[in-house]
């Protein structure tokens, strides 16, 4: 984190965290996708900031990350929504107040001693790790709570962003090959997930998981 000071880092961490919270609150596809783009941009900036030494491989890795997360994946999603004329199913298992309560509860957990082993990885009094971990938990909640398939995909992607942020803040080893690998993984996953989602939509007419009864029975 040589190039940024702690204030800037806190700003980026907050952006990432807020994006995951707002993902819970959106009602439209496009805004969800835009939130994801914002989050990924913040991650890319953090990666750039973490570069200790200059190496071409690292630049390639970061470029690839930017390309996949900010351009290719959202392009796929937008295509998906447009092709299938997807009405974002905003239905959730828990209604909005309950969701916000759970989010608050999770945040309290991250602040408490409960996660002391994890927070001891970074500097004490540092809110960065807590925010990143909060992102992780809230993205999990997104996947669990939302019924639509697109929000699940976005939830997993946001989870991945949160994990990368956590690793960066904890100062864990970041080899360029590592990043490249994750990026490649995400690319393939996005492709497959969109294809799968379109197939399901064609069969069932909806991406709402609770409406898909025939397969289960």
């Amino acid at each position, binding site marked *: 984190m040589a190039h940024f000071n702690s204030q800037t880092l806190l700003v980026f961490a907050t952006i990432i965290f807020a994006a995951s919270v707002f993902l819970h609150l959106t009602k439209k596809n496009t805004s969800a996708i835009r939130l994801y783009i914002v989050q990924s941009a913040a991650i890319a900036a953090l990666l750039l900031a973490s570069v200790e030494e200059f190496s071409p491989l690292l630049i390639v890795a970061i470029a690839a990350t930017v390309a996949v997360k900010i351009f290719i994946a959202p392009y796929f999603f937008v295509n998906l929504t447009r092709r299938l004329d997807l009405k974002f199913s905003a239905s959730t*298992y828990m209604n909005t107040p309950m969701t916000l309560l759970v989010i608050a509860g999770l945040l309290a*957990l991250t602040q408490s*001693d*409960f*996660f*002391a*082993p*994890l927070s001891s990885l970074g500097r004490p009094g540092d809110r960065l790790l807590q925010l990143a971990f909060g992102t992780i*938990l809230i993205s*999990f*909640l997104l*996947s*669990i*709570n939302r*019924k639509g398939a697109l929000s*699940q995909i976005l939830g997993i992607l946001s989870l991945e962003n949160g994990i990368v942020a956590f690793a960066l803040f904890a100062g864990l080893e970041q080899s360029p090959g590592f990043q490249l690998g994750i990026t490649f993984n995400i690319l393939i996953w996005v492709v497959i997930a969109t294809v799968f989602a379109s197939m399901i939509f064609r069969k069932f007419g909806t991406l709402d*998981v*609770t409406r898909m009864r025939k*397969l*289960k029975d």
Partner: protein
Amino acid sequence: MDTLTSPTLFCLALACFATGALGALLLGKKDTAANVVGSVLAIAGAAIALIFSGAVLLEGTTQSFAADTSFPLISLSFSVDRLAAFFVLVISAVALLTSIYALGYVRHYYGKYSIGVLGCFYNIFIASMILVVTAHNALFFLIVWEIMSLASYFLVIYERREAASIRAGSLYFIMTHAGTAFIITAFLLMFREAGSFDFDAIHTGLATASPMTQSAIFVTALIGFGAKAGIIPLHIWLPSAHPAAPSHVSALMSGVMIKTGIFMLIRITLGLLPEVHLWWGLTVLVVGAVSSLLGVLYALSEHDLKRLLAYHSIENIGIILLGLGSALVFSSAGMNTLAALGLAAALFHTMNHATFKALLFLGAGSVIGATHTRNIEKYGGLIRLMPQTALFFLIGSMAISALPPLNGFFSEWLTFQSLFQGVTGFDVVTKLIFILSIGALAFTGGLAAACFVKAFGITFLARPRSNAASQAKETSPLLRLAMAAFALLIVGLGLFSGMVTRVLGEVAGDMAGLESAATPGSTPAGSAQFTTVSLLNGFAEISMPAVFAGIVTAFAAAALVFFLLTRQRTQAVAATWDCGTDLTPRMEITATGFSRSIITVMQGLMRPGSETEIEYHDANRYFPKTGTVNMGLNDIYRSFIYRPLQVITTTIAGYMRKLQSGNIHAYILYIFLTLIGLLAWLNFQS
């Protein structure tokens, strides 16, 4: 002597088996060639292994050799100490003779099934058994153990068009793998203490293990290896698997494969674990007593010849475990001399059982081949049509009933003597268990004799009970040669039991932790020469040659005297007294009827039942046409042990199914909860 005990010879034997397996498989289309190649190479391999193991046994040094592989944790290491050499000796002797038998017997399968497959798996089976007892690395041991189980599985389902064979094979497969799971648990527990899979490292590593770990290893090893050995209640695979295999394979499975379980039990309890606890020995004693009694009682109720013999294997494993159990009890009390005695008794009975059980299975194979049925109720009068087979079967029956002067009597005598020592000098519970074990052994001997009077008498004596039996013919000379060799071995082991005891005493002494005896021919437990075996400073003495000579002399004297006294009397041949009716086979005693009285006495244990089917001439059911009464036993193991296990497992699986809702949100929720749970646990740990 060095060449005889060198690893080269050992590898040569294994190479013979490998060539035999491959050759038989390649020649699969040509029946005779495949059979000859498979059997002759098996004979060669067995002979070489026999020489090798005999030399190691007599010389007394441990041969170890290893080949490292590039995989971590596993190395192809062998170690042939005296115990392993003894077991290799038994395996190769039995394999040698059954291969001779196979040369003639496999002709039954020409044109029906693939002979190449039979030869291939047969050779792999024998080779894997030899490898099992010589492996010195736990992972390597597990690999060859699995190979042995798989090879025997394929041999059990060899007659694959019979539905019963497939069922038997499936049951065997499941039970042997359940046992292997326990064995793996035992080895993993050992690995945790020792950090390596090598047996030497395990031995040193276990020296510091806690008693809880040691007991856990013992229990899992007992269950795992006991499932292979066939102790009650893990025996349910034995009575269906042994009859389903071809007869020479049944002889091998019953005679030697189940003994590999005993070998590893001895190796683990007396070799690897640093000390023996008292309750281990008592458990083994109880298991042995129950297995022997129940095994012989179930055998009494059978009228399928091979199933009867399979149940007798369970009984004899029980007797071997009685010897082993007493050795463990004495070892836990520090009485190493008596422990050596008990172990020597167990080892002797292992060898004896291998010989007479193999002989009986080979005889059964001949009889079944000649009459094409396994049902004893259809036999009869075969002693006139198959005289040599009858004679050898009689010798086998007398040996297994522990009648002097044959070898079975001597090993039971040794087992008795080692159990006698346990009645005094221990606390009340141990004493009572020893007394009841002696009682169990006494009853087993009597019941086994009853069972073999039935088996031999109804099969061979009196009149034929069916057409098949009246048209039987004596088998080919090769089969009779193999059986004759076994019969000679039985008589020889009985006659020379003194010398065999001396060798076994030294083997047992090594395992029981005794220093080598000061004078040859005597161990601290007693002295054993050709003429007499004397135990424990004259507490018990016996001379098998004297018993043999006594019987023979008395017989000759009586025959001579009475012949001289009555040489002017005539002998007329006439029909048996028929009570005024026609003399039919229906007048003779049936196998079911013979043993039904004993079963009725034990009905609480045995749960006999009978089914009656009557076919009527007319719809009003006044005039019966035929009636069948089927008297059998209800299987209490299936109903009380295995069925409840199955029901519990399926119920739990049904409940678990509710977790699998098919809803992806639920699955992600599970992941989330697990994550939180792990973090919390981590928190509590630190």
